[in-house]
């Protein structure tokens, strides 16, 4: 049994210190050690994007990230976007456009959509579709998700 490793990082704006197993993923740390279950486990291998979090401002798959590799970095999860204005508009648009059915993929999509809006792609549907290539949805068929993101990206 490998010894736990003590790490320190910024989580959703505040300092966090936690002991993690060196083989643990950041996703397991978030969900099981820290109790932040908004970040979802879909596939565990980088295919579905349900586990998308922001690492130093960039979206990454938490299931592919070692927890120990968060040391000294800045992590934002869907819980951390509760008072983020861009994410708030994205959430609202997802509701208005019916871009949520079962909702399992939604936290990952909202994380990714927020960064797409902030990259100023505008309402270019192809660019948005490419931007969400790493997020799978088994329910909606994507059209309404793209509509929702486009509506936020084009409103300035």
């Amino acid at each position, binding site marked *: 049994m490998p010894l736990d490793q003590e790490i320190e990082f910024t989580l959703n704006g505040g300092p966090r210190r936690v002991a993690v197993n060196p083989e643990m993923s950041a996703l397991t740390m978030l969900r099981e050690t820290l109790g932040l279950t908004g970040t979802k486990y879909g596939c565990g291998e980088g295919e579905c994007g349900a586990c998308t979090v922001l690492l130093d401002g960039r*979206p990454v798959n938490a299931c592919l990230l070692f927890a120990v590799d968060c040391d000294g970095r800045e992590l934002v999860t869907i819980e951390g976007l509760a008072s983020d204005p861009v994410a708030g508009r994205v959430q609202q648009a997802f509701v208005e456009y019916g871009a949520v059915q079962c909702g399992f993929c939604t936290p990952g999509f909202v994380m990714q959509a927020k960064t797409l809006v902030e990259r100023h792609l505008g309402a270019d549907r192809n660019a948005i579709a490419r931007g969400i290539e790493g*997020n799978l949805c088994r329910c909606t068929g994507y059209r309404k998700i793209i509509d929702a993101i486009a509506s936020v990206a084009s409103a300035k």
Partner: protein
Amino acid sequence: MPQSKAGRVAFEPLLLGLRRIPELHGVARDGDSLRIGALVTMTELMESALVRAHCPILVEAADQFASDQVRNVATIGGNVCNASPAGDTLVPLLALDAEVELVAKPNGLLTGRRVPIGEFFKGPGKTLRARHEIVAALRVPIGVPGRFMRFFKLGSRPALDISAISIGVCARRDAGVLSEVRVAFGAVAPVPLRGRATEAALEGRQLTEAVIETAAAAARDEVHPIDDFRASAWYRREMVHNMLKKVLADAT
């Protein structure tokens, strides 16, 4: 991490984090070469002004790599060490005549060596890298400006797909005549492959329809793909032929 969970690769008793070594980060010009740090991610390749100016073929490969989330973490050094025959940066690196810069610190003393990328791969997942070595950087010679460069990846869908075949072409173009031609293929052999016969069919020639057909036929004959769940060997050969024609048509 997925490879460990699937039991294909065991975790070593010692895990080594490379992220805090500054020499492994960043892209810089070093004389006549670009030195691309092993930890440069696909996203950083796409954003680097130096890479965009001198190796646009690497930008094309990075752009078609996996997904945004994966591009933000996948490193070029990891792609090279992973040594998948379908590794998407390997084909451009072969076409660019890159070198792998390896470093080790066997007994407190830092030693290094450089290996041409064409000699680095020994089989799927196997490289010349010794256990105690790490890849520090990829070095790409800066060629004459305005060379033709193209990367083509064939998959069944645009995103998150491993290449069924891929093709990389780099060449000088003077008044329609190609020279210093490099052609590389991915996913058609146990290692990413230089297409020497294809190159010979193009070197010093004007790209007429007949020359393109001869080169594409040479390519079909020199690749030796396997059948797997992504594509049959026959399909891969045909696609190497047809897609090389398409790539070369863009060079005319």
